[in-house]
């Protein structure tokens, strides 16, 4: 394994603060890098969505992707166990191991005989599992496990960073909207108060009841009052 390509890969995985970041593409690249750098046949990854449910799937080949999907749907398999326990799950010989019978059969069909599942976690947060597969039985060597873990960690850092940015973006937008709504509502209060000779509390009460009866949010009603489309 050449040094420079590996170092570049780590940078690639952590540098997620880019405008056009796409999770699915990122995961796909991750699995491709695993196959390029490690002594394995294929790789797959399962990732959680915003509700913390395992949802996203990516893999280095279509057959592997179907295998991962199978695990997701059946809720059974080494990668699922890895995600649930937060610990690596390593099986050198799937058929012989006698665990997860349905998964083992599906794996045999796509030519997978050994699996090493690595949790994608940072402190107490587990966001998914990175799964390494081999076509021939045999345990994964130390270098594979070690580098596999490092790649999983780098990808986890990158993904969590991106999630935090997205969360803040969304909250910032909400804050902006809430603050600007307040301005609109106060302006509309003034309009209604003047038009109907009411005080501000009465005006607000009138607005609330109209909003309720016309099934609109206060902000929408306020905007309509101000731009004249609502002749309350």
């Amino acid at each position: 394994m050449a040094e420079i390509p590996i170092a570049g890969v780590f940078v690639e995985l952590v540098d997620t603060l880019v405008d056009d970041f796409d999770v699915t593409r990122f995961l796909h690249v991750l699995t491709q890098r695993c196959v390029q750098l490690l002594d394995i046949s294929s790789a797959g990854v399962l990732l959680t969505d915003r509700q913390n449910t395992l949802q996203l799937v990516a893999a280095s080949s279509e057959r592997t992707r179907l295998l991962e999907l199978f695990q997701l749907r059946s809720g059974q398999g080494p990668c699922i166990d890895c995600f649930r326990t937060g610990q690596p799950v390593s099986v050198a010989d799937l058929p012989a191991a006698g665990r997860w019978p349905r998964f083992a059969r599906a794996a045999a069909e796509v030519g997978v005989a050994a699996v090493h599942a690595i949790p994608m976690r940072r402190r107490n947060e587990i966001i998914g599992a990175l799964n390494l597969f081999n076509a021939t039985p045999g345990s994964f060597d130390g270098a594979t496990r070690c580098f596999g873990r490092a790649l999983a960690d780098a990808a986890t850092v990158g993904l969590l960073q991106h999630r935090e940015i997205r969360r803040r973006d969304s909250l910032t937008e909400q804050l902006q909207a809430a603050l600007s709504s307040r301005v609109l509502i106060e302006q509309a209060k003034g309009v209604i108060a003047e038009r109907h000779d009411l005080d501000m509390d009465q005006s607000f009460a009138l607005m609330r009841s109209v909003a309720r009866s016309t099934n609109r949010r206060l902000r929408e009603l306020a905007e309509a009052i101000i731009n004249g489309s609502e002749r309350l």
Partner: protein
Amino acid sequence: MQNALARVDVERRRAERAAVIAERHERQLLTDTPGLREFHLKMATMHRRVQRQHLAAAAMHAAHARRLRTWIGTPQRHNALPRFMASVAGAAGVGSAALTLFGPGLVETLSTASDRCAKAAQDLEFTLGEGPARDAMAAGIPVQAIGSAIRRRWPHYGPAVQRLGVATIAATPVELTGVPLGALTLFDQRRRCESDCMDNLQAVADSVAGMLVPADNQGNLDGLGDLDDPGGLPVRAALLAEGDSRAIVHQATGMVSVQQGCLIQDAFALIQARAFAEDRPMESIAKDIVEHTLRLD
């Protein structure tokens, strides 16, 4: 107060974590291959910025906790709860600070100040439609003026704010993940030198920006409903609750738009013009309009 003290610890630990990561990148900057140098520099810079931000936050929470302790220990509590903005000013090393949030069209949506001086300065800017917060927000870069530069830069706002005794002004945009929310303005009665002001300003502004949205996975903001109940709140709510949404001015604007049959923006301009002509704050004119003791005819 317990809240504030707990936050001091949280912020200090975060600062330490960021420092550790930054140090690692700084070491690797020297030993690693040239191809990775840019990456390590980027990461180190980012983490140092985060470290300074958390240190500034820790300082603010500590100062606020001290103020709260003093306030609680005072037998007659004449004053309102100590303002968090006062701690922000302290952390920035100046006498007064003002946070102004803007909506579309540079409309002020929230203003909060550390003391009467900062509030008066903010009101001046609001009335005159000219000043450091607006400039920083509109340009997206820090703004600064010391001594006579103040009235040169702002022909109307300048002399007025100098009459309040202000000799140094520095303002910087407050943004979160690149989205501009408003500006943090610092005021001092003394003439300060350039580097003095700008040094800490960025870290303090970043820190305040971070305080405006919930830190943990607390899901969505439920409008601003959770903010109307003061006392012992997390800082975010305190900051926003201390703020003035200038409700009365917006109400008066609505009234004037009906009275004069004009658009909201024009109604606002009419109130502004009257405030300017009578040398009174907008709030005062607005109050008269809402109480029907004044009509802008």
